[in-house]
């Protein structure tokens, strides 16, 4: 008797009702933290963006849309947008082509020590951008920097890397290409592994050459990864902070100041919390619009 009872008791948890509280318990940590550190700040930020506040307790003042109208007339805001777009245009295509090219080469089993090359190209991903930024400052230093000495060997005259509006943006872009190409390459490599080899072989048997295989088979397969990279890079460039802070300090003359630098500067240096909140919403809106446009564009091209 006792035997059957215990068996029935043991078998009971199979029924859904008796353990249905567990899944909620398991996912609870995320949702509790998310309410406190996710939803609340985002809502608070909306309220804050209609206020003027220097952070002193009780000093909040409702100012309506003032922050937003001020923002539209704020040159620094527009400049930081312009800088972001410029830096994106400068680094993204190079990074993408380099990442793709290296992945295709390293996917072929043609070269020796493939693992080593892959690791070396990936290495910058591990580095703190503070360490990398300072090293690049040294490399791009005007007088004795190794970058100017290297191009000097090719007879090119020294470049004012960090002291010129445009060259500073180039310097940031070089740092970004250095840091992120390995990431792109690893993503491309993983995607290339997913292409069924029979497909390439069949095309080859049908007389397609390597370029045709690449354009007609490989690239369409990589499309989802490329869209993912585009999205991540757009968001990432808007979120850029450490690299310009360390390498150029946002200068010269705000030429490399990014939205995130602008927000943290307004909040933590100028103590304009309300204005900083309105800035962060403006940038968020731009990122959302960019992402939606991009989705539309890719959906349209697919059809």
């Amino acid at each position, binding site marked *: 008797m006792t035997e059957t009872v215990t068996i029935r008791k*043991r078998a009971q948890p199979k029924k859904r009702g008796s353990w249905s509280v567990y899944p909620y318990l398991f996912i609870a*940590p995320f949702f509790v933290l998310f309410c406190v550190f996710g939803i609340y700040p*985002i809502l608070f930020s909306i309220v804050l963006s209609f206020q003027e506040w220097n952070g002193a307790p009780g000093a909040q003042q409702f100012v309506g849309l003032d922050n937003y109208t001020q923002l539209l007339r704020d040159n620094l805001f527009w400049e930081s947008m312009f800088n972001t777009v410029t830096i994106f245009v400068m680094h993204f295509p190079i990074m993408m082509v380099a990442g793709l090219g*290296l992945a295709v080469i390293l996917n072929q089993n043609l070269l020796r020590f493939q693992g080593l090359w892959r690791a070396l190209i990936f290495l*910058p991903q591990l580095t703190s951008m*503070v360490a990398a930024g*300072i090293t690049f400052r040294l490399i791009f230093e005007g007088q004795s920097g190794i970058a100017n000495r290297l191009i000097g060997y090719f007879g090119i005259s020294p470049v004012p890397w960090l002291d010129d509006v445009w060259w500073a943006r180039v310097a940031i872009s070089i740092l970004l290409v250095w840091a992120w190409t390995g990431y792109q390459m690893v*993503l491309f490599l993983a995607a290339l592994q997913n292409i069924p080899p029979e497909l390439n072989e069949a095309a080859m048997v049908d007389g397609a050459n390597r370029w045709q295989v690449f354009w007609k088979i490989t690239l369409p397969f990589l499309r989802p990864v490329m869209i993912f990279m585009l999205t991540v890079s757009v968001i990432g460039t808007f979120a850029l902070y450490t690299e310009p*802070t*360390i390498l150029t300090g946002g200068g010269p003359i705000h030429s490399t100041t990014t939205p995130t630098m602008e927000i943290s500067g307004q909040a933590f240096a100028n103590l304009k919390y309300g204005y900083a909140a309105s800035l962060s919403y403006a940038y968020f809106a731009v990122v959302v619009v960019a992402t939606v446009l991009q989705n539309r564009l890719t959906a349209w091209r697919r059809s």
Partner: protein
Amino acid sequence: MTGKISGDNSAVSRANKALLYVIVIGFCAFTTFPFVWMLLASVKPLEEIFGRNFLPINPTFENFKNLFTQMNALRAFFNSALIAVTSTVLSVLFCSLGGFGFSKYNFKGKTFLFSLMIGTMTIPFVVGLVPTFIMMRNWFHWIDTPLPLIVPGLANAFGIYFMRQYMDGVPNELLEAARIDGAGEPTIFWRVVTPVVVPAMASLGIIFFMASWNNFLFPSIVLRSPDNFTLPVMIASLQGSAGRTPYDLMMAGSVLSVIPMLLVFFGLQRYFYAGITAGGVKG
């Protein structure tokens, strides 16, 4: 990519192969050079860092010695390690739990909660930056403590999503068998599922560790006193010091911050790639 394609090698002429080597090695030189430069500069006296010699004339460990005596780098290293290890271990645990809940159970509101969670991934960190800071300061009084750098990220959407993918691959029969043996749900998670998903936990843990170890923006805002600085904050704080920027100390500090990541990487390369690609290929 074996078989016929590699048998096709003869089609790639020697010249082409040499060209491919030049491209790949050239790019490797570009990615590796800053590390070499950092390492060389870290053993050069300040004047030599701005000198014309590639190799140090008088290699010295003085920079490292000064870093530890003048800057309390040991403390910063310890702070970084404490924050990175604590947040990594706890995050991996909570994300595994969340992934387990979403993968292996059916419950009311599951689809909605999951989409809500995924939706949060698209909100840029910076939107909550100012209010989060105010919360940390006015409510929790956590400014200048490691807590703001550990607690908010403990359960993150990407991690739960990542673990769920992996948990989906764990056969349900395994769980059922344990249930028939009378194991409770927490025991099933801890004794049955966790051992199976260790590789995924390793990949996720590496991503979290790397993100925490290299984090700069939020630490630089919430950490105030030098005794509480993490390594990146300490290195960056030198930049503002009066007079000439002490590149000698900064380079030594950079080497110190890079070495642990390199060790982790070369030890656990496989997990690195697995974690990095999981976000992209599915995303």
